[in-house]
């Protein structure tokens, strides 16, 4: 096709209207996506990052034809996602993370055979295509087992094989590494990287910054239904330029202490990540100020673990962008 872009979106919006109750129905509207413009070049590996509920999955579902935009337009390989659905569907693959989305009672092989029929893979190509994909995702030898006995990592690899059955030009990967162990996640990244290297356009959503940093040519950060930043990983990291980061491992930090940290002079962002009983506090401050002493003073009486000061990462930049939204 003529278009130089694999994915184009202009002013993309999606509003959900819900109704609850029968006798006195209450109607409400949620604007999940509030006007997104983006283009993804052919063969590009493009990351879409954002917190839960930011509008990532809704955006993908509009691009892959499962949802009609409330406003705006989108094209895949030059085909409009609303009016040319069949052409779009022939050119896209869709993979999402999690345990569901496969027929548990069928073997991995039969799952692929069925989706090969659904996605229009010519019969004479099905056997070889399935064998190649099983090999690619490392499921050769396990293909005759029922999917209900597969581990989460195996299911995820089968999801990817399914998404690639019809050799799509554009692959949507919606949090593919969620719940996958580190070794399997590394394999997954390698597979995704190889796909892009071989010319497949990949749109990836993920919560793992390291994954996005390693894989993506460009990244868009979406929050509150809008694009907040767009650029290469290096360009996004510059959002945290001029900052320094103090990381503190702590146990049982009261909300009042976190509020106090946010109020410290020079502190720009404070994030708390729960890791079981451990809380990881990340405090970003102006680079010329050393706030480590003030931070520890505010945490007096709290049981602490490791304390470290470091340069900002893509994740810090992401936190800064999302908090500014």
């Amino acid at each position, binding site marked *: 096709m003529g278009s130089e872009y694999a994915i184009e979106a202009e002013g993309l919006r999606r509003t959900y209207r819900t109704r609850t109750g029968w006798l006195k129905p209450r109607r409400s509207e949620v604007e999940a996506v509030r006007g997104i413009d983006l283009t993804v070049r052919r063969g590009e590996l493009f990351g879409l990052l954002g917190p839960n509920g930011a509008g990532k999955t809704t955006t993908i579902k509009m691009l892959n034809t499962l*949802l009609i935009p409330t406003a705006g337009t989108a094209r895949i390989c030059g085909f409009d996602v609303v009016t040319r659905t069949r052409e779009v569907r022939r050119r896209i693959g869709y993979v999402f993370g999690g345990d569901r989305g496969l027929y548990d009672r069928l073997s991995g092989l039969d799952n692929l055979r069925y989706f090969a029929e659904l996605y229009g893979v010519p019969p004479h190509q099905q056997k070889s295509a399935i064998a190649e994909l099983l090999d690619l995702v490392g499921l050769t030898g396990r293909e005759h087992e029922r999917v209900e006995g597969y581990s989460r990592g195996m299911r995820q690899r089968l999801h990817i094989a399914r998404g690639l059955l019809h050799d799509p030009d554009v692959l949507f990967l919606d949090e593919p590494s969620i719940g996958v162990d580190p070794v399997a996640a590394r394999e997954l990244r390698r597979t995704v990287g190889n796909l892009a290297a071989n010319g497949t356009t990949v749109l990836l959503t993920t919560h793992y910054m390291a994954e996005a940093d390693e894989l993506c040519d460009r990244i868009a950060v979406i929050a509150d239904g809008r694009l907040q930043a767009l650029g290469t990983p290096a360009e996004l990291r510059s959002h945290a330029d001029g900052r320094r980061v103090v990381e503190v491992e702590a146990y049982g930090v009261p909300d009042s202490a976190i509020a106090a940290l946010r109020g410290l002079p020079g502190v720009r962002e404070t994030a708390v990540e729960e890791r079981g009983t451990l809380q990881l506090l990340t405090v970003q401050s102006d680079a010329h100020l050393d706030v480590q002493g003030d931070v520890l003073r505010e945490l007096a009486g709290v049981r602490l673990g490791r304390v470290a000061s470091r340069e900002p990462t893509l994740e810090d930049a992401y936190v800064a962008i999302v908090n500014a939204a």
Partner: protein
Amino acid sequence: MSTLRLITTGGALAYRALFNWTSPTMYAGTLLAGPTFQLLFFAYLGRQLRVADDGFFIVGNAVLAASSACVFGGTMAVANERRYGTLGHVLLSPRSRTAIFWGRVLPYAGNGLLIAAFTLTAGSLLLGLRIPLAALPGLGLALAAGSLACGFFGLTLGALGLRFRDVWVVSNVAVAVLLLLTGVNVPRGELPQWMIGVGHVLPITHAAEAARLLAAGRGLGAAAPALLAELLVGAGYAIVAAALLKTFEAESRRRASLETL
């Protein structure tokens, strides 16, 4: 050729993926033993109340036996996609929805035919009904037509699963409605006029009528109008199911109705 593959190979794979009662114990218990005991129940009740002879109940319940597999199967063909979270992937297929879902009905209809034939055989042996040998091909046709119509009826109910969460309630009610209104156990002449009218557009009604004529040795010529009527009812449900699937899919894209469930 490729559409034929989608209907046959695809339909068979979907049957194995989505039909809940494929294990031998579930199959024998739910689809073979259950209808046989139901047949015996109505036959003995009919004897007690002097409603009709054994042949009426044996043939009627044999035709009805297909309904569980076909109605619930047709519903499972759509509703279980939601259970497995595969519906989105099916809807992303560029292939014809009609071919995908009509193909799914065929194994259920085949299954229904097998169950109906088993129930007819078991009922005849247990209660001593003699069916003329010459009637068997015609009876096979009547059972097949009833099963096919029932399968498309089930798919119509299943299509509602794209719009409504509790589609199983509808299937349960539908099976009870078939039991009452199709004349398989209650002579249709005894029913109020409106029930007779509803029965006309339900699957099984005309197949049961045709099967009874054939079992009585009346020949295919006498049963042909009822057989044709059953096929027309089945074709009607096939069209309604395809239209509902198309409508609800379009609605799900527009209103995100599948997102909210």
